[in-house]
Every structure is written in C-alpha cells, then in structure tokens.
C-alpha cells in the first residue's frame, strides 16, 4: 500500500512546466528523498502532494484513494508539512504551546489539549515538555525551533510528513540530531516521510529510496544505496561527483544552471548539459538523445534511469 502517491502529475505555472509528468510512491513507513537543484520542480511536486496546488493533469493519491479537493482539511490530518526555516515558519508572537496547539484547534481534535501538546513535544524530543510551553521562538535555539515545527505536525497524528529541506538552515552539529529524530519517528510511530532536499548526504543518512529530479521529471529512482553508489543517469553521476569529499573521483562540474521549465528541450531534457553527450556519442545513440521522448519512470521499487545510454 502506498501512503501517498503521485500518478502522472503535471503542474504548470503559466508556460512553465514545473512538474512534467511524475509517478512517485511513498510506501507506508518508508522514507523517500526527492533530490534536485533549485528550479527542478521538487518543491512544486511536494506542494502538489500536499494538495497546495492542483495538478493540471494526473492525480494525487492518499492511502490508495484519489485526493478529494473538497475534503482537503481531512486530508491534511493525514499529511503534514514541515517547513524549511523554523525561524520563518513560527509566529514570533506565539508561544511554543500556541504554535503546537493551533492544529488541534483548527481540526477541533477532541481530548485534553495540554496532554496532546505535551505528548507531541516529547515525541519531537523537547523534554520535559512543560518547560517549553510558555517559551517564545526567539528564546529557542535553531534546533529546538525545528523540533517545535515538527511537534506542530505530529500533534495531529499524521501518517505522512513532507519535509522541505528540514535541516538546511540548521547548524552542522545540530543537523544530525534532527535527522536522527526523523528516523526515530519512522521506527516508533510508523510515519512515512518524503524529504525534499538538494543534499545527497541527507538522503544517504536517512532515506530508503531516492528520486532524482531534473527539469520537471524524475530522471533516476531506486534504492538509496544503489542509486548513490552506482548511479546510472549522467545527471546523478554529476551531482554525486560534486558532493565535497576527500579522495573522490574528479568532480564533473556542469556548466550553467538549471534550465528554464518554460522551454524544455525536445528529446532528452538533460542533453544540453549532459557531459556524456558533449563528450561525443555514436551517431545512433546521439540521435536518440536528440529525438527520443523518454517515458515517465515507473513508481515501483526498482532502480530506473531516464537515459538511453547503456
């Protein structure tokens, strides 16, 4: 069963094809990392999965049922969002208690509010929770603020969390603790998690599966260990080669930046920046790169790459 899925999803903003046909499944209790650079469409896909934008084509499914856009409120109890920068996503004039209780009030959740808030804060690693009730965001460290944001999502007991760059604004030494918390939430609560990030190290740290996105499409997907140790798509290879590490292969630094989603090239969308194509391919393969429209990669658990190269 899939907890959350995109089926042939297309998202457009005017002429920009931000998401240009994506199949993606997040299984129950699974952690999937959606990796790509700014402008690749990963956040638009996440927003579509959260029901924040409506795909122009394709469907979003929650627990194998198509998302009903008239019942978004109900859907949001199952799928919660954790935003990137906790300094920006918390109201500076709300105490920790108010920030976490807000969801309960909106959804009119029955039960003792104090107890529910305390339980969510403990789950997010803020213990003893009562000590944090009356604190304001500015009195907390970056790591603690991110935990408050996570508690605000957990308080509704969702099945799925969608986290957009959950650690990119945190200090390096705090980052590991938040990632460990996300892993623990999966083990202890059986949460499914979609992490949107540009950080391959994060994917290696916590994700079961990874999907690499480029210009609106997933270009490679599969088990994290397989994709990140034996990548097949030239884009994944290039991304991996620039993760700063010692004693690695020569970096493949691509020229230019992520291209314009309102002008997606024909044939393979990565071709204009592809180092393999630029290095010269046999005429037959080169022609396929230029002309062949590649199919959308399947959402199953296999290792797939959208590339005509062997």
């Amino acid at each position, binding site marked *: 069963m899939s907890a959350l899925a995109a089926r042939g999803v297309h998202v457009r903003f005017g002429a920009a094809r931000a998401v240009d046909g994506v199949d993606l499944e997040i299984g129950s209790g699974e952690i999937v990392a959606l990796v790509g*650079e*700014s402008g690749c469409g990963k956040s638009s896909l996440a927003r579509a999965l959260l029901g924040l934008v409506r795909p122009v084509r394709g469907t979003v499914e929650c627990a194998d049922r198509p998302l009903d856009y008239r019942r978004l409120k109900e859907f949001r109890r199952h799928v919660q969002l954790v935003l990137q920068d906790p300094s920006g996503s918390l109201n500076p004039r709300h105490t920790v208690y108010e920030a976490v209780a807000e969801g309960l009030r909106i959804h009119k959740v029955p039960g003792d509010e104090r107890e529910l808030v305390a339980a969510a804060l403990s789950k997010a690693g803020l213990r003893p929770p009562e000590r944090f009730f009356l604190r304001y965001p500015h009195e907390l*460290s*970056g*790591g*603690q603020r991110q935990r408050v944001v996570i508690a605000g999502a957990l308080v509704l007991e969702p099945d799925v969390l969608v986290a957009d760059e959950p650690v990119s604004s945190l*200090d*390096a*030494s*705090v*980052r*590991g*603790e*938040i*990632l*460990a918390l996300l*892993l623990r939430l999966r083990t202890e609560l059986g949460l499914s998690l979609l992490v949107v990030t*540009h*950080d*391959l*190290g994060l994917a*290696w*740290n*916590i994700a079961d599966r990874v999907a690499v996105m480029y210009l609106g499409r997933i270009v490679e997907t599969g088990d994290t*260990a397989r994709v*990140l*140790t034996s990548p097949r798509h030239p884009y994944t290879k*290039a*991304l*991996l080669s*620039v*993760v*700063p*590490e*010692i004693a690695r292969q020569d*970096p493949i*630094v*691509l020229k230019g*930046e*992520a291209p314009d989603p309102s002008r997606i090239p024909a044939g393979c969308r990565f071709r204009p920046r592809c180092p393999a194509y630029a290095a010269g391919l046999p005429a037959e393969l080169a022609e396929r790169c230029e002309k062949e429209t590649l199919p959308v990669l399947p959402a199953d658990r296999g290792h797939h790459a959208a590339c005509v190269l062997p």
Partner: protein
Amino acid sequence: MSLLELRDLSVTYAGDVPAVRGVSLSVAPGEVLGVAGESGCGKSTITNAVLRLLPKSATVGGSVLLDGEDVHGMSFGRLRAVRWATASIVFQGALHSLNAVRTIGRQIAEPILLHEPKTSRKAADLRVGELLEQVGLPARRARDYPHQLSGGQRQRVMIALALACRPRLVIADEPTTALDVMVQAQVLQLLSGLVKDLGLALVLISHDLSVLGTTCDRVAVMYAGKVVEEGPASVVFDDSRHPYSGALAGAFPRVGDPRFRYAPAGLAGDPPYPGDLPAGCPFHPRCPVAFDRCSEAEVELLDVGAGRRAACLRAGEAS
C-alpha cells in the same frame, strides 16, 4: 611572508560578550585558509576585524597585521586605501548584498572610480567587463540588474566586486551557503582558479567542513571564539584530533560510506551563547569523550605533530 597575520586577536562586544578570544592565524599569497565553525563561534567577527568593520562599542585586543602593518593602528585615510585595494570581503548572502536599483556594472565600477579617481568612465567599463569575464559571466551582463541574475550568478558578481581593485587578500564569508551543490562546485572552482592565477591569499569561511576540506590548504576549526583545531585541510577533515572537528566532519556524511547509512551523526545540545560560556573547555557539555578534568580549566592549543594543533586534553590519543 604571510599577507595576513592575526596575533592573539580578541574581540569583545558591548555587554561583555567575548566573540573572539585569542585567535592566531596567518595566510600567505597563493594560500587558501579555511575557517570552520557554527553560528556564534566568532568566524564572521574575525572577518570584520580584519578590515575594521566592527561596531565602535567592540573592544579589540591583539593585532591584525596586513602585509606587516597593524590594521587597528592605521589612520582612517590609510584604512580607506587598504580596504578593497589590499584586502576585500565577499560578504555572506549574495542575494541581498547587491543594490537592487543599480546595474551590476555600476556597482562593480564604484570602488574602482573611488580608489583610482583618475580612471575614465570608459576604462572603468572595460575593467568591469574584464572582471565579469574573469568570474565566468559575459561582459554584457554589466547592464543587468541583480534580479535578472540567478543566485549563482549574483555570487559571481560579488566575487567580481571583491576583485575590482586587485586586492591580494580576499575573505569569503560563507560564499556558497544557500547555493545548490552544482552551483557551489562552480563557485569553489572559480575561487580556486583565482588563487592559482592571481596568486591571491584566500580566507574561506564556512560551517561546512567538507567544503573546506576539498578547497583549502589549511583549516582552522573554531568553537566559542577560539581555534580548537588547526592543520592541513584534508587531515583535519579525515582524521580530526578535536572531538568537535570530528562532529563537524561527521555532520556531512560521506555518501557511499556504510558507517553513515541510517546513522546521522550529530551532537546533543547547541553551540553556547558567547556571553555565557561554560567553565573549563567550552565544548565539554556537548563532548562525547569529556572527563572530569575537562570542566576545570580551558585547554590551550597543543602541538600534536605534523603541523597540527588541537585544544583538547585527549588530542594526543590516537583516534
């Protein structure tokens, strides 16, 4: 001879907040020094101390020698001449540091015209074009406004700006934070190329030890206003002697290394507030290998061989 030398530099902000507490570092021409650390460790304060950009209320101790001359003893006129022309800074946050209502060409020309008033408008424009090409942008982009450029392009403009008056020392404060990995790689490649081609001395400040490990010759790791470890870049990253550097290195996992799979490495707690440091070694409350003596007295940097120093009682132990 080193171009920049910090001798026992200390900076205390108003309200008795010691941001930098006795830092000694040096950089030679053609050398890249990395300074690693997290928010509040004092790394940006050092940047500001080098060009005397600190608020008046800050107390500075020790000395900052730029080409052998103490920056904090310079007359204001001398300081103006030195800023940009001897040393310049690539400030953090390229997205917001540029003036939104002036073309980037005019912004790059401004320091040139100020420092060399005899320069004709035409000569300045030519130099702007050269600078833009040096950082990998076409000269015609001089007519663009910042909003017409992407994040990576704006960071290139910031670097061109820093190079405008041919400085010999460039300090880059988090030049790649907020950039994508591929753009980060492009910017780092550009900076390394400039050091090689122009013989610049470069100080690279970042919280990402893995970035510094690949780009720098030497790295200094700072915690709570002090250098806690210093040495050749790759060994500090791969085989650190201070548990804090080890934690920083581990925070950015080596992709493909099974030790990091499902095992994000982090430290409990948060970096301390500079105005309220713990007694003894300021790192001991978060340290995984601390013992009783760690809370008693602060440890100075100790020589641990092979050009390396570490401020840890356990630094001598094999890791």
